[in-house]
């Protein structure tokens, strides 16, 4: 019984152990072992957190969209999909925030500016705000089914919105008179160790994503269960109440 009330399983415990190990290794490789870049100098080390963070954020939102579609499709309808969508979006917003901050710091060091109106960057910012709105809608209340349907429709609308935003920003940029700063002084000549560190970062972050979503999904389930608890007791209580009143 008490086992139902925790969010960890032997699998997530093992996974968590590997994630910790991986993060330690990533820190050692990224900060101490790997060399500075020829063009970017030491600032290239930000990439080892920034690139995996951005990858994870996009992965999270793809997962949210896929789970939302799975919820809306009648044959696979289950609140589990809804909770995965929600958990994934939460993790995605967190990592998108991190990658926006690290990205602008890196930009300041490399380009001398925190922000550039590059299509990828702008789309990312829009995605960030869109999913903050998505999380706000999830918190609106109502029944679980209501929440699930509303947020699933919203997540699918975001799938329409994001490519349109990206496309329009790209169009807007091509007409821009000023040349974009992106692409200047950004050539990274990665050697084997640097590439390996980056690759390790992506793998570690992906495992961390899986670990976070599994836990968050289960804690969301417990929240739902807490609201649902007493369903059986409520029914029998209510029936007993009626019998008493009937006498």
């Amino acid at each position, binding site marked *: 019984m008490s086992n139902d009330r925790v969010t960890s399983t032997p699998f997530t415990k093992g996974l968590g152990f590997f994630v910790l190990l991986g993060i330690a290794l990533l820190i050692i490789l990224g900060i101490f072992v790997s060399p500075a870049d020829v063009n970017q100098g030491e600032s290239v080390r930000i990439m080892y957190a920034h690139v995996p963070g951005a990858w994870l954020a996009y992965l999270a939102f793809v997962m949210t969209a896929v789970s939302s579609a799975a919820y809306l499709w009648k044959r696979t309808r289950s609140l589990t999909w809804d909770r995965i969508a929600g958990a994934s979006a939460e993790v995605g917003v967190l990592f998108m925030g991190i990658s926006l901050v690290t990205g602008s710091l890196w930009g300041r060091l490399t380009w001398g500016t925190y922000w550039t109106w590059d299509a990828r960057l702008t789309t990312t910012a829009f995605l960030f705000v869109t999913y903050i709105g998505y999380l706000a809608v999830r918190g609106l209340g109502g029944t679980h089914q209501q929440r699930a349907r509303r947020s699933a429709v919203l997540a699918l609308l975001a799938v329409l919105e994001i490519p349109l935003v990206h496309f329009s920003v790209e169009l807007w940029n091509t007409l821009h008179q000023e040349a974009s700063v992106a692409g200047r002084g950004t050539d990274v000549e990665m050697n084997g160790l640097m590439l390996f560190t980056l690759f390790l970062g992506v793998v570690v972050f992906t495992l961390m994503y899986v670990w976070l979503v599994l836990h968050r999904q289960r804690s969301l389930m417990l929240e739902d269960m807490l*609201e*649902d608890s007493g369903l059986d007791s409520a029914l029998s209580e*209510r029936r007993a*109440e*009626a019998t008493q*009143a009937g006498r």
Partner: protein
Amino acid sequence: MSTVSHGHDPATLEPVVDLCDAVAVLGSFPALAGATMTVLRGEIVLLSGPNGAGKTTLLRLCAGLVALERGRGRVLGVDLSIDRESVRHRVGMIGHSNGLYGDLTVTENVRFWGRTVGASESEIDLAVSRMGLDGRLAHLSVSRLSAGQRRRTALAGLVARRAELWLLDEPHAGLDAAGRDELDSVLKMAATAGATVIVASHELERASKLATRQVEVIAGQVRKVVGL
């Protein structure tokens, strides 16, 4: 006199509402824990019972707005467990709000609700006059009406959209004595015109004068049926 011709229609012989051990759940709470009730055409049934007894949920179940979890339920010959969408437009439910547009006049509101089911202009005029809303009131905007007149307009909307079953949740709330008398006469009129009415109310004395039958709801179940 027109009711004579209706008597030959086999549809009128079937109960308008026929619930058997119906269970309905709000979130996780069993608001209806096995309700059994039959209502015949032309009846005015009073639902009484304490707050939280499940009266509103019982009305919403009959309107096709809440799913039937367990048990059997038929409304106007439609099985609620199979298809609760198609019963909606034949049932009119007025809860705490009237569903009126304050900026439009009485006639415009009634016409709007009538048109949602494709009612003709003469049917709409008939609905307005049947509820005593023709004349001075007809062209007044709803925001300038009294609470009783608003409720009357909402009921005219039900007539216009040809609701066969009227479900009213605490319709006396917020009305003064004159408004209550007005409401009662309107409901009697509706019942004589062939509608079936179920009223949930705390105003037992008042409503029992109006109703043909009283049904007591306690803890999500129908406990007592009292003929009046």
